């Protein structure tokens, strides 16, 4: 039984710099980096020393407490450096890319004849497991659990997000192989949720072995958390696994070729990018070459991911493990005079969900927004504004307050098991308080994981 969901709440932030549907070639990067910080809560245990040679698909570190979960090198090369942060925490594992890579050839693995347990073992040892994330808590899935369902979102509704229909066009076989493998992991259903507003690519519409649902509405309609909530909500004690659509294709590629080929198509977007478009890159690629000659102003912020949930990286930093996009927007570290661009100004340059700014008059105009907070942090005063962009049957402000006060009972009662930090990204955007709401939810989830799981 496929489901159709219509959302009334949400917000599409209209930004300048959506990617044109053309691909440019980028050369193989000289360095790639796998960042253990991309996997929340992971304590990595290194398996390779600095200076040692690695091949694509070879484990370079593993989860210290769940040793079966391996994290593998995306390329042939040598381990260049292990970058450590405060308290010697491993921040990055950088690998010098060798000149010869062999992503071609290999023989297919027959998924149909495998049991769920065998698929799981294959994925764990091949380094595919980190692509599978679990709800609740929003971390790499615990392989000891069985999920009641697996959810895949066939579109991304975040600002300037890449168009999955374009990205996965013609990759029907890989996507289908990935779906077949994932279907073995659950006794429940695999849900593939399409955008109800526009026709999807054949890769998605012709997918077999999955329940195809449709959801329409503004962002966060494309967030898998929203889809789970409306299609098969999570109760306490239940697990749902989620996989990004492009990662399904990467998993599929492994089963088709027997090789870990960590290539994905990313969108280079944002108001400060010249001719934003798409490109095929390696996971963890250095972005310096990608951004070369493409940035139109000096004082910019480079984000791996989208503007709402992405990570800030340096202009010579590395693409995040899960990210399908790079966004470049202006930094907003300037004073804004009260009557021109400040809080009493006309505000035609600001995008606001409230009617305190004339955004509602601007039709489809796209905005060039910077990273200024546009105000100072305050206590919660205004009510009802988070609810407008939060399409869950959950009281967002009350849940955030419970998370801030470490109130486990209330967090559980108010639905913390159904949310991930990214579900609160829009709340964080619109909130008058300027509080880092995603951070608060993450801390709440950490506490829940520690005390209740």
């Amino acid at each position, binding site marked *: 039984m496929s489901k159709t969901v219509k959302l009334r709440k949400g917000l599409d932030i209209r930004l300048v710099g959506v990617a044109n549907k053309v691909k440019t070639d980028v050369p193989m990067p000289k360095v790639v980096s796998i960042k253990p910080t991309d996997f929340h809560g992971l304590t990595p245990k290194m398996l390779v020393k600095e200076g040692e040679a690695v091949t694509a698909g070879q484990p370079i570190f593993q989860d210290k407490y769940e040793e079966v979960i391996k994290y593998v090198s995306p390329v042939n090369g040598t381990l260049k450096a292990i970058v450590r942060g405060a308290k010697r925490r491993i921040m990055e594992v950088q690998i010098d890319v060798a000149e010869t890579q062999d992503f071609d050839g290999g023989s297919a693995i027959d998924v149909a004849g495998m049991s769920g347990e065998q698929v799981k073992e294959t994925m764990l040892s091949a380094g595919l497991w980190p692509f599978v994330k679990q709800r609740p808590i929003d971390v790499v899935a615990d392989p000891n659990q069985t999920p009641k369902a697996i959810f895949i979102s066939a579109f991304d509704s975040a600002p300037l997000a890449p168009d999955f229909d374009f990205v996965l066009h013609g990759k029907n076989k890989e996507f289908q192989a990935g779906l077949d493998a994932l279907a073995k992991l659950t006794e429940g259903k695999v849900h593939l949720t399409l955008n109800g507003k526009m026709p999807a690519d054949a890769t998605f519409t012709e997918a077999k072995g999955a329940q195809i649902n449709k959801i329409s509405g503004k962002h966060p309609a494309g967030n898998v958390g929203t889809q789970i909530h409306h299609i098969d909500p999570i109760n306490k004690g239940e697990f749902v696994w989620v996989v990004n659509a492009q990662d399904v294709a990467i998993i599929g590629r492994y089963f088709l070729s027997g090789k870990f080929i960590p290539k994905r198509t990313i969108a280079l977007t944002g108001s400060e990018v010249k001719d934003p478009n798409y490109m095929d890159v390696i996971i963890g690629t250095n972005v310096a070459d990608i951004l070369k000659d493409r940035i139109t102003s000096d004082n910019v912020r480079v984000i791996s991911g989208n503007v709402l949930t992405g990570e800030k990286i340096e202009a010579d930093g590395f693409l995040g493990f899960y990210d399908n996009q790079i966004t470049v927007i202006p930094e907003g570290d300037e004073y804004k005079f009260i009557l021109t661009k400040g809080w009493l100004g006309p505000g035609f340059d600001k995008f606001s969900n409230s009617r305190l700014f004339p955004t509602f008059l601007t039709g489809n105009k796209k905005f060039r927004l*910077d990273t200024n907070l546009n105000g100072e942090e305050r206590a919660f005063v205004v*009510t009802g504004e988070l609810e407008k962009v939060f399409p869950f049957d959950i009281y967002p402000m009350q849940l955030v307050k419970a998370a801030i006060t470490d109130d486990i009972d209330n967090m559980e009662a108010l639905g913390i098991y159904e949310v991930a930090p990214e579900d609160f990204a829009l709340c964080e955007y619109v909130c008058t308080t300027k509080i880092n709401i995603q951070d608060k939810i993450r801390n709440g989830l950490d506490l829940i994981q520690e005390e209740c799981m």
Partner: protein
Amino acid sequence: MKFLEKIVKKNAPKFAKGGKLEKWYPLYETLSTFAFTPNHTTKRGAHIRDGVDLKRTMMTVIIALIPALLFGIYNAGHWDLAVELGNRDLPFWADQGEKIFRGLMIVLPMIVVSYGVGLGMEFIFAMRAGHGLHEGFLVSGMLIPLIMPADVPLWMVGVATAFAVVIGKEIFGGTGMNILNIALTARAFLFFAYPTSMSGDKVWMSGLEDKQALAEKSDAVAQQMDGFSGATALGDAASFMSDKMTVAGTEVTSDAAVSAFESTYSQMDAFIGMIPGSIGETSVIAILIGAALLLFTGVGSLRIMASFFAGGWLMGVVLNAVGGNPYFDLAAEYHLLIGGFAFGAVFMATDPVTAAQTGVGKLIYGFFGGVIAILIRVLNPAYPEGVMLAILFMNVMAPIIDHYVIQANVKRRMKRLKTA
């Protein structure tokens, strides 16, 4: 504005930690963030943020209050002149210049005292906490004068403001943390501490008390003031509650009392606001202009406003049906026009900090606020104005309303768990 920006930047080190003027940092922060949105950028989470901030939100409420303030100034001037001339039937729209001047002389000092005392108190607490002023009092400081009678002594405004800011807000943690509406706390403080200055029929027109004192000494003044009443519509209506209903000294029937009331305060007069009362509360038109702005911008909650009016009107209809004395018989829509009902519904009940915070909770909160306001008005002769007490009562009840609304949501989730 480059030179201003230079000044702000140049002086920043002096107020920073270790600087010469470190302890005055809150003052620097308040002034610099007033003139400039600071250069803070997002550090974690969403990289871009909505343009809205608390300053703009609060400023919108102040702008929404301007029509009521302007009308209040004129109205205060009008009644001041009426007392001076001893003529209650003075034409409302004549002598505008004089009335505006008189009104300004009454209202401006109250605004100055309210802001001066309130911001002073807030600043002391901000210095202790080491941060700039938060914006909440910008609105409270304007609301307080607007809900005072015209003849209230300035020192009372100051004392009430200080009480409201310190006891009503700062001891709970400042803006966003208070349980009771600040402005109503100030008014309630005066209402119970100095009842003779906050109710009765001498306080609503500036200078009336002095003039009546003078009348006892001088026959000429006494003659002039003979039959001059300083009562408000609410005061007159409340007198219906006494056993003897009198019009001009002679006892009359219930119907006659109501019609005498209606001829003194026509619905149109009450709607426009040409009646005595607290400074900002009389003109329903001016208040509705403000309400339109609040609703359009989304700063004020439509749920609360609408349900507050609905609750008040329904209670009026119920009392009409019960009947018994003329106050019960007063048309339900009258209640929405006289006294502070409209002002309370639009500017007081909708204070987001003290109102209910859930969608359904707001409906319940507003509805019972309206019901209780009229209930107190009509059934309790000691408190002619029930709106203030009703809203304060509902402020206290709001968390309980929210609790039950949220529990319904929690139960839904629990039920799903059981059936799953």
